[in-house]
């Protein structure tokens, strides 16, 4: 029995884990930046290029999602599948919307948007303090929403892994795949995380 239909495509898995690391880092970096005096500048010089990298990856990922259907989510009830699909759409939406909001916010504030010494981005919104203010507040709200969505996603997968123990996480893992349990066998009930 082949493993391929039960797992996400290789590109999907790479994109998922690379973005997971970048997005979690960015969320923590973002809240730490606005709360810091000493580290504000250093964190800002990381936050802006990292945000742009996430935007590019999010667009690539949506393209990849269209090209590669996810594996069937065996064992999920229709309602669960709806929630899963809905939260996937929400996360994709936020991963695009949040960096675009940051970019537009800097544009409306009249700031130069330098990613590196050589590369800077053009303004995508007119310079306007009221617009800046709305976008600045949106960036905070969307950031918290993204964190909440990430936390819900994390809790859901942890619930599947540790409580339901349905090995749904295996669809996204990178290592050699353990074959799904076909014939249930009698085993001890020891709780194992690994």
């Amino acid at each position, binding site marked *: 029995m082949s493993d391929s239909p039960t797992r996400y495509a290789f590109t999907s898995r790479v994109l998922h884990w690379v973005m997971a690391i970048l997005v979690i880092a960015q969320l923590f970096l973002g809240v730490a930046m606005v*709360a810091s005096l000493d580290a504000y500048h250093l964190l800002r010089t990381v936050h802006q290029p990292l945000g742009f990298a996430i935007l590019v990856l999010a667009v690539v990922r949506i393209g990849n999602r269209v090209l590669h259907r996810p594996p069937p989510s065996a064992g999920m009830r229709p309602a669960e599948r709806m929630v899963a699909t809905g939260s996937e759409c929400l996360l994709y939406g936020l991963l695009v919307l949040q960096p675009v909001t940051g970019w537009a916010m800097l544009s409306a504030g009249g*700031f130069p948007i330098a990613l590196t010494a050589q590369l800077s981005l053009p303004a995508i919104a007119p310079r306007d303090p009221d617009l800046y203010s709305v976008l600045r507040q949106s960036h905070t709200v969307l950031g918290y929403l993204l964190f909440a969505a990430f936390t819900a996603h994390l809790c859901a997968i942890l619930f599947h892994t540790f*409580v339901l123990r349905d090995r749904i996480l295996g669809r996204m893992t990178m290592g050699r795949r353990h074959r799904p349990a076909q014939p249930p066998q009698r085993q001890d009930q020891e709780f194992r995380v690994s």
Partner: protein
Amino acid sequence: MPRRGDGHEPSVGGRSGASVTRRSALIGLAAVGAIAAVDVGGFLFAGGRLTPHTVTPSRFVDRFEQVFGRHEGFRRNHAKGVSATGWFTPTGAGSAVSTASVFRAGGRHPVTGRFSLSGGLPDAVDAADTVRGLGLVFRLPEGEQWRTAMIDSPVFPDRTPDGFRDRLLASKKIPDTGKPEPAAMASFLARHPETAAAMDIIRRQPRTSGFGDSTFHGLNAFRCADRSGATVPVRWKLVPEQPVRHPGAEEASGRDYLFDALVRDVTRGPLRWRMILTIGEAGDPTDDATRPWPADRKSLDVGTLTVDAIDTEAPDNARDVNFDPLVLPNGIAPSDDPLLSARSAVYAESFNRRSGEPKSPSRVNVSEVPDER
């Protein structure tokens, strides 16, 4: 590998061949809860929510509002000001230490500026001993910008952000006397000898008659990098070409007399300042804006700032510019001065607050400046 329950404990609905018992479900839930708690707790901690006594940019700006009151739509510090426009013409001398395009010979870069008085009152009465500020944004080729916020003191009174924040409170004016509590300032200075020393230096520099004959200092050290990548510490100042006058105490008069004089000066003709870049040597403090560098340090005359128009603050001019001292062009980089990042963070918070607030007209209206007395 976990398997379906063997009957000793009731199964509670495992799927896809996993074994789930009440015990395993509880342990699993605990694991989920613990990881979620670390996740949410870490996020709140990173955002400063669990450490209410740490000074954040927001709490720093709160201090300005505590001392000066909250004045919607205005900067929390240097609230009273006017917009200025002009240009910068480099001499080319700066290219010896920096690759920055702003220093390259032959350029002429548009500049938006803002003359201001320190303090959070947008309608403060002009006074000779109030610190004068000049913020500038140079618009450079290829979308680059250089922003700097300078004052007319040769050194800054505070070495650290915390010192500045404490000094604000110590210098808060008491409504009855209109002066700060003497004991509060004395106690502050006893705890901050660097501020006492800096204030001595500032006091020794005689006040000039107005904005036009003030020397404006960038205060913090920065690092310039030349084509070979070699860096030197620098500080900059703008030295007026206008003749400098040191008025007696009796000359000061009128609620807006400093701004009115600036407007009249520019009506008569452009004002000019030479930009002097001072090159630090090994051992010169780059992380302490309270200490001057030795007077014999090499300096470069890197160009001339010309101001040819003063305007009432309005949406399309300096009013909505955040003069963040860390918006720098390639070729100029921050030093290790802790004030720089803190200034950047606090200016951003002030900008965030005022941007969304309703705006009222600025105190200084250029079209209403009275004619020569």
